[in-house]
């Protein structure tokens, strides 16, 4: 049975021309689930619209 993220993995893999062999899929899915969970944690934090990103740390 297909996992919920499988369609998404297939679509992004196609868009970026990334190879995803079936044997790798469970590990990629597990890693993506962690990244999305941590990404949601960041997303849930309310920031002012004016907040600048900090790609380079400066003082």
């Amino acid at each position, binding site marked *: 049975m297909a996992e919920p993220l499988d369609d998404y993995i297939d679509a992004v893999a196609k868009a970026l021309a990334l190879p995803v062999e079936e044997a790798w899929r469970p590990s990629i899915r597990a*890693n*993506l689930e962690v990244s999305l969970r941590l*990404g949601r944690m*960041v997303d849930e934090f309310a920031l002012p619209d004016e907040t600048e990103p900090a790609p*380079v740390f400066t003082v």
Partner: protein
Amino acid sequence: MTTKPEMTAAEIASAVAGRRMSALDATEAALARIKQHDTVLNSFTDVTADRARAKARAIDADLAAGKSVGPLAGVPFAVKNLFDVAGLATRAGSKINRDRAPAKRDATLIERMEAAGAVLVGALNMGEYAYDFTGENVHDGPSRNPHDTTRMSGGSSGGSGSAVGGALVPIALGSDTNGSIRVPSSFCGIFGLKPTYGRLSRARSFPFVASLDHLGPFARSATDLALAYDAMQGPDADDAACTTRGLEPTTPLLANPVSDLRIAIAGGYFQQNVFPEAVEAISRVAKALGATRVVDVPEAARARAAAYVISTTEGASLHLDRLRKRPNDFDPAVRDRLIAGAMVPAPLVDRAQKFRRWYRAQLAEIFKSVDVLLAPATPCTAPKLGQVNFNLDGVELPVRANIGIHTQPISFIGLPVVAVPVPLEPLPIGVQIICAPWREDIALRVAYALEKMGVVAAPSPKGF
């Protein structure tokens, strides 16, 4: 004069400059130790013996001619194999990069170490493409912990930790994106400095996460750490993130008292998910420094999450073409993490970078009333090689995902940290001495004071 295995860099440089020992003797002694012990430790991937001997002879010739030599004269050192070393392909722990042309020029930090008289003796094992906290490597085998060779050295600068912890060399250089200097320092029982983001040039080193990559030194004493750091400071147009600040030497300030410093223990997140040995290490350091105040660092868990998101996506971006063309030449675990990273939606990355600025402001506020924060470097002492889970308070947790939980929220905003080794038995463990941006001098001063008090020390290797 014969060399002792654990002579510090300062002792070697003093003996060489005073002509009580030749630079060549110091170099030969390091090469002999590497030959004798690295079959077990597996910390080196390249030994640059001919180059080292030539450099050592040149130093000895300068001394014989009455010329001045630098503060690291004759000191053997080695570098994580993501530093360019002229004549070697910069493998960065990978199989793929071995196909690159040999580097034409040394990394800036190697040039600066050698300008100070240090002698490069080789390149060191590391986790593939620095995406690692264990020191294991599927292509080169694991670098091993010098206090128990069945255990991890820590990653990703595992060879650096192993080589210095094993007293093969007094100084090594490594990189730290999320903890890769502080974790091996903790597991291998040595001192490590992750400077302020942008303080030391990354020019001609293989990157991982441009937003978070730092380079820095490992040593067996705070003095040696400061000597190496001072030798490597300075602007460098070849690294876009390198500061234009002038040199700020720390060595002359090391012995200044620490009694005037406001030292606090990082609370909340930094006191959770820790084994008793990490609690004991913090307790010993805090007691020695008279630190009782506990300061909560707000949203540290979210900071770790944001660092994770930035790392996995920038890492994926860096390797995108290699993932397309040579996916089977990666360590499968690294490949799968990177492919997943390429699939994280872009808005989450932007939000992580914006959160970073918010979080930096919170820490800046804390540093108005605090000079030093103390936190664990790792939640535990070195796990067994290949260990998958550990049990904390009855809960099974994955080792790899949890080794760096206390380092990631700090490097996320580029704060300077010295990891100091608390010599617990049977294994050492590190404590992070965290300071405000550009205050490496304070972190090194505290490390030096703790060393003089006998609270922190690099234990003699006993695993081989």
